[in-house]
């Protein structure tokens, strides 16, 4: 890797974006790359928007990704995909979990959840894939493993060997939950044809 | 600033230095266009050294007196006269109350220095020693020593006596006014007697 790979993970507080980014960075570190990561996690616990920026390369300085610079974007929720889509490169890859989490303004009737987000995004982005991560995770054994499903999807687009991802899962996930997370990861991988 | 009079009052916390300088400042305020006075009074209550700067005239900017320019230095205690003596101009007037208040000791015991009067005389200042504290005790209240000192000072400044008396009446609590006025007059008399002695001994 002579250049830097920029990955953006976006979602809603509580969806596990931070754990996912930890797995991703562990994969990169194990492969000998330098990683810079930044997140703003204050509002995460309270259902606010969460963004994690991961930069991987041989020599990484800034931890911050600018709009139009993300090679990959993994969106854990539709509206968040829409909100951050301008960060993606023209030929970048957008992975969207189709889950909708209704934000407060919509709940109190002050706004409406936008329609046709997926159609919009598909039209704008060169490499687009959406999936029902929640359903796949549920089938693997627990809806909380949605984040690992999405990592499975991402792993198919990135250049790291699959074993590296599996090792990162073993290192990062408590033993008794490993089985279900491996299943979740595999179902994510299977989504990419 | 040609016609500015520079006065310093110094002594030990609790001796009435700041009260005296306030009275002097108030008198000057009635008579002069501009008066500036300043002190650092934090340690006054706790037996530390106290110095008050006072300047008055047509136009006064800085409240602090420059070293070597003071017209009059009034020391309520001997050691303080030496500590602040360098503020006095060559040949300036030094009024010294002739008591010695031992400083609080830090570390090794240091005796109260001797030869103070000889030393300040050797500097070429005009020295007037007054027994203000002794006289105040004779009057029945050692605390009026500061007013005796003010009386002696007033004899060396050209401000009307009525102004002094008016301010003393205003500033001092009513039941203490009489004894303080008396003390003030005693101070004037002491200064005038000394002047007469000086003249007659020529």
């Amino acid at each position, binding site marked *: 890797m002579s250049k830097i790979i920029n990955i953006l993970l976006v979602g809603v507080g509580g969806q596990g974006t931070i754990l996912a980014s930890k797995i991703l960075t562990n994969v990169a570190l194990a492969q000998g790359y330098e990683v810079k990561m930044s997140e703003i996690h204050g509002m995460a616990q309270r259902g606010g928007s969460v963004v994690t920026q991961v930069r991987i390369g041989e020599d990484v300085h800034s931890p911050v990704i600018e709009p139009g610079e993300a090679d990959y974007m993994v969106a854990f929720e539709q509206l968040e995909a829409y909100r951050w889509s301008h960060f993606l490169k023209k030929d970048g890859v957008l992975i969207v979990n189709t889950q909708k989490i209704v934000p407060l303004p919509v709940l109190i009737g002050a706004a409406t959840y936008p329609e046709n987000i997926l159609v919009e995004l598909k039209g704008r982005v060169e490499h687009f894939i959406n999936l029902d991560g929640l359903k796949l995770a549920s089938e693997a054994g627990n809806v909380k493993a949605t984040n690992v499903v999405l990592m499975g999807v991402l792993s198919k687009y990135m250049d790291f060997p699959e074993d590296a991802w599996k090792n990162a899962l073993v290192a990062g996930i408590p033993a008794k939950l490993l089985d279900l997370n491996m299943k979740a990861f595999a179902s994510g991988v299977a989504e990419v044809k | 600033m040609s016609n500015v009079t520079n006065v310093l009052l110094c002594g030990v916390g609790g001796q009435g230095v700041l009260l005296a300088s306030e009275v002097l400042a108030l008198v000057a305020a009635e008579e002069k266009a501009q008066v500036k006075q*300043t002190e650092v009074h934090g340690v006054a209550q706790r037996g530390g050294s106290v110095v008050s700067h006072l300047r008055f005239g047509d136009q006064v900017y800085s409240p602090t007196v420059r070293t070597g320019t003071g017209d009059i230095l009034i020391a309520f205690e001997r050691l303080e006269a*030496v500590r602040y003596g360098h503020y006095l101009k060559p040949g300036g007037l030094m009024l010294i109350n002739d008591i010695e208040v031992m400083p609080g000791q830090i570390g090794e015991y240091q005796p109260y220095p001797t030869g103070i009067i000889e030393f300040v005389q050797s500097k070429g200042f005009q020295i007037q020693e007054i027994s203000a504290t002794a006289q105040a005790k004779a009057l029945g209240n050692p605390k009026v020593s500061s007013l005796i000192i003010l009386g002696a000072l007033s004899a060396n400044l050209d401000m009307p006596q009525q102004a002094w008396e008016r301010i003393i009446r205003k500033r001092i609590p009513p039941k203490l006014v009489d004894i303080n006025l008396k003390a003030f007059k005693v101070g004037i008399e002491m200064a005038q007697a000394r002047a007469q002695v000086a003249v007659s001994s020529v």
Partner: protein
Amino acid sequence: MTQEVGQRMLMAGNNAIARGAYEAGVYFASGYPGTPSTEILEVLSQHREIKAQWSANEKVAFDEAMGVAMSGKRALCSMKYVGLNVAADSFMVFPFAGTIGGFVVISADDPGMYSSQNEQDNRYFARLAEIPMIEPSDPQEAKDYLKLAYEISEKFSTPVLFRTSMRVSHSKGMVTLGERVKVGDSTSFVKDVPNWVVPIFAKSLKAKLDAKFAAITDYVETYEYNRIEKGTGKIGVITSGASYTYTKEILPEASVLKLAITYPLPKQMIIDFCAQYDKVYIIEELDSFIEDQIRVWGVTNLSGKDIFPRTGEFSPDILAKCLFNEQPMQDFSNEFNIISRPPQLCPGCPHRGAYLALKKSGALVTGDIGCYTLGSLPPLGAMHTSFAMGTSIGNAFGFELGGISKVAAVIGDATFIHGGIPSLIDIVYNGGNTTVVILDNSTTGMTGHQEHPATGQTLQGKEVPKLDLVNLVKALGVKHVQVADPFDQKAMYQAIKDALEHEGPSVVITNRPCIFARGEKQRPKTPYVIDIDKCTQCGACQRIGCPGVLPGEQAAIDDVSCTGCSLCAQACKFDAINLKGE
């Protein structure tokens, strides 16, 4: 002294500030005692039309004044400069929202550290908070500038920092009095969440603050009270505050740009001024606050901290020395042994009793800010650290955590209320063993004996229930609490010993008032006297460091200053010291 409109009278800077607040129509003033600001609130409180109060600490004072300002009335908050460190949290955020009624914060700095623990230059606070700052140079300005400060505050809805210094606050000068602005009693706060709930709306409020400050910077460019006094010759001076008065003494012919508003600076006015002279001197005490800003604009014909000191206050002598190499008259200490006269704990001070017992215990004693700080000096030498208000308790726990055994913290009653309570809570919560000795002398002593929540009276003389320190400490979870009489050395020492040996947090509270506490001066006192027949001249009574016990070969007691506390008698092993008349 009566005060009438139009009257010209001699006034101290702080009294003039108080008068200025009165004339500016201030409705409420809060603060905490601290040299050189204390007199401001004391004098202001004498005006019964103004609600004035000592608050528990400067942050509380600030928050209260904020509330008054937000209700639409003019509010004043006064403190010593380090007090702004305490209030800084609110001070830094309030400008984001702005104010409704005029809001002025007074910071009284102490260049030269006559009565302070450090020499920080509080002008930076104005810059840090993005608010304007005004600085008087003498008592007349100290009065007049309050009105100006409130006008600016309300014109731009901004807090204003009014910065004074020891020399301006504690100097007297002639002041002409003015009228009090009419004060209405209507309130005007509108519940507008996006303006007043700053943490959530900070981003948009910051943009507003920046725009507001740009407008203030423009306004200041032609501010009439920043004035140029044209002189003869090729030298210019830019100055403010007390330094202006020294400049006028030493450089009477120079052209002077006197700044009233010292932040933001009038950039074009300054650049134009500097262009007219070969050399411009920036005469400012402490940091190169003004000089640095001017240099950034590319002005190079300046001289400032290359010749003037960065520490200590200025004086005409110092200016003459730096500018012309004129040496001031040296004091006579080279030629004569002028022994020092340090301040000490007063005769009859209860802290002396506590310290004698602590010294005997051999504990490491962490200390705090107050009269009792003097207990660190010889001959007591019984307090070993001191930094800032309320620090002693946390420090003591820290020493314990660091592995040092036998540590006790001393803290005054006012200081404990100011900032010691959370620290004591923490010792209980985090499982410490620390001993805390609250030196309760029923007053805020060092600053001139002000009242506080545990003395039973407010600043404006209202009798109120006393904060019960014993029960407060128990309610915080401290199980071992003991009240001890510092004038009973045996009992005091036992209380400290028990506290140090107790497993778990312990508090000892002393119970003798300061000799200057309310009501104490009038109490009749019987002095002690030394029987020279019994006296062996061992010096033990002198070693307690009481000014009432005169030094010398034969000790004697000064019966004018002796208050009869009996500590010297207890130090005597020969029963040579007894009450007069016994």
